[in-house]
């Protein structure tokens, strides 16, 4: 068969397996592989400042967390206002290990990949707990239940001296094959670590979505009665959505604990939950690539606004609080404008871009 595997035109499938592929053409797949390679090698060619790398690292952690949020809110349609608590559980799993074993225990500094997975497990377990009310609750009541879990989580951490009452629990510097990861390499090292986890999580979600485990989420979101008739237990599917979301959030949280080299409650508050929601929306709810666009866009906005505020501080009278007001103002406006004019988020721009280039050079 002389099928063309490089362009979308003239690309025929001869088995169902072929049609199930993520990348329909060799061109798509090659572009993606090159893109991944670039992600891995660019820090070698450009001297990256720590502050820049820190921002990138945090964005990627947020991407993992938002992937989780997208599972529960985007795909399964359950509003979660407690996502930062899930991330916090992952971080505090590391915090617990540190408190029990000491911050430079072998498990922590050598076995960090294990710790990160453990963080994910802890997040998943917490997800199961939070998801339980979902067995009975419908949409908005459930949203508020997640909010309560967020508040209870914060309160418990702040109360327990085991967790140092929410103050930062320091985590030691990790070791890698090259020895101890020192300050100069810290952010770049974690860039790679987070990148690997992000890619793994991304593929995990991508694969999930083309199997029954992903489709059932969308089924429950779109029509839970019909889903019930198709043999899915809507309640358990919701709990399961929370578990997957908790898993991803837990991984993000553990990574964050290592990146920050400390676990403190202030990174996992209600405000952070709302930020995650904003990221998911700006990126595009219910899309995989939206989970990646969102955090990047919100972080970019934050940095730009900071500069703008600084600039306005130089030219405007001292008493005008414009500089301080700009950040919340723009943050809110971006959410609202996106919801009003582009509810499908940046992912939709990406989709339009893709469909434009897909059949290139033909327009249709």
């Amino acid at each position, binding site marked *: 068969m002389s099928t063309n595997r490089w362009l979308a035109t003239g690309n025929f499938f001869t088995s169902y397996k072929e049609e199930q592929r993520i990348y329909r053409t060799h061109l798509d797949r090659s572009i993606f592989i090159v893109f991944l390679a670039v992600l891995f090698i660019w820090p070698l060619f450009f001297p990256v400042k720590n502050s820049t790398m820190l921002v990138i690292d945090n964005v990627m952690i947020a991407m993992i967390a938002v992937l989780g949020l997208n599972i529960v809110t985007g795909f399964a349609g359950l509003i979660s206002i407690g996502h930062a608590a899930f991330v916090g559980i992952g971080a505090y799993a590391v915090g617990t290990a540190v408190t029990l074993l000491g911050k430079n225990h072998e498990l922590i500094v050598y076995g960090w990949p294990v710790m990160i997975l453990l963080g994910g497990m802890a997040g998943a377990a917490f997800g199961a707990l939070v998801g339980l009310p979902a067995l009975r609750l419908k949409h908005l009541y459930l949203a508020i239940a997640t909010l309560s879990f967020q508040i209870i989580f914060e309160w418990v951490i702040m109360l327990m001296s085991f967790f140092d009452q929410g103050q930062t629990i320091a985590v030691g510097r990790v070791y890698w094959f090259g020895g101890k990861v020192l300050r100069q390499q810290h952010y770049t090292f974690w860039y790679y670590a987070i990148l690997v986890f992000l890619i793994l999580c991304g593929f*995990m979600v991508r694969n999930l979505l*083309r199997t029954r485990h992903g489709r059932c989420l969308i089924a429950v979101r779109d029509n839970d009665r019909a889903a019930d008739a198709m043999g899915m237990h809507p309640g358990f599917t919701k709990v399961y959505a929370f578990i997957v979301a908790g898993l991803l959030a837990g991984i993000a949280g553990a990574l964050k604990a290592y990146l920050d080299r400390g676990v403190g409650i202030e990174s996992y508050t209600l405000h952070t939950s709302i930020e995650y929601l904003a990221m998911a929306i700006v990126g595009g709810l219910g899309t995989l690539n939206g989970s990646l666009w969102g955090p990047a866009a919100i972080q970019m906005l934050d940095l730009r606004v900071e500069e703008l505020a600084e600039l306005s501080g130089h030219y405007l009278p001292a008493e005008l609080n414009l500089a301080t007001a700009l950040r919340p103002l723009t943050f809110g406006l971006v959410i609202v404008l996106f919801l009003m004019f582009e509810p499908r988020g940046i992912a939709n721009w990406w989709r339009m871009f893709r469909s434009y280039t897909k059949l290139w050079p033909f327009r249709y």
Partner: protein
Amino acid sequence: MTTLTVSDVTLTFGGLNALTNVSMEIKPGLITSIIGPNGAGKTSMLNCMSGFYHPTTGSIKFGDQDISKAPPHFVSELGIARAFQNIELFAGLSVLDNLLLARHRHLNYNFFQAIIYYGKASRVEAENRAFVEDIIDFMELEAYRHSVVGNLSYGVQKRVEVARALTLNPKILLLDEPMAGMNVEEKEDMVRFTSDILIDRGTTVVLIEHDLGVVMDISDQIYVLDFGEMIGEGTPEEVAQNPAVIEAYIGEE
């Protein structure tokens, strides 16, 4: 082959009886129709059979299994599938995905196999895809395979609705007014599908339908409901002769 037995079912909503002491027997290998005027309790009966409502008193048995309190996903697993009166499709998904969703129970790979995908999950998906394609051929939906369901015409959506129920590979298929709102050609198609479902696929069919012509043509057994009570049963000929039924339909002068 299993029989669905409804005995003495009463369904009450806040003091109002939607169904009163209704008994019926859905015999395998037949097309059984439930007819009656609007508000007679036909859909309530179907809801009880498919687990969406639970009878206040009385019992529903599938073979020896009591399903009066079973939730819908359990009933569907036993082999009773339904198509909804008001289209209840997953509007944001393609026809293919809608049908694949109905294969949920048959996709027997676990979560970890799913996230790895290559290997078992991929193989099972392909096998089930083949099954789904079969149904697509049967219901003549080839042209719409990749279309998003929400964008399709009403008649086609109805067909997808039936196809999705069929994809569950049920023993009994409950069809709730599959021909409502269709034009003559679509109706003819749907009648053909309904009899083919029984003949080609050996699936017992329970049909709710307003078009008495269709019902009389294709049914083997008919139950007539009015105000939640059973007023007649039998073959089309018997029902057509039943004075209570005639009265309910034509009304007292």
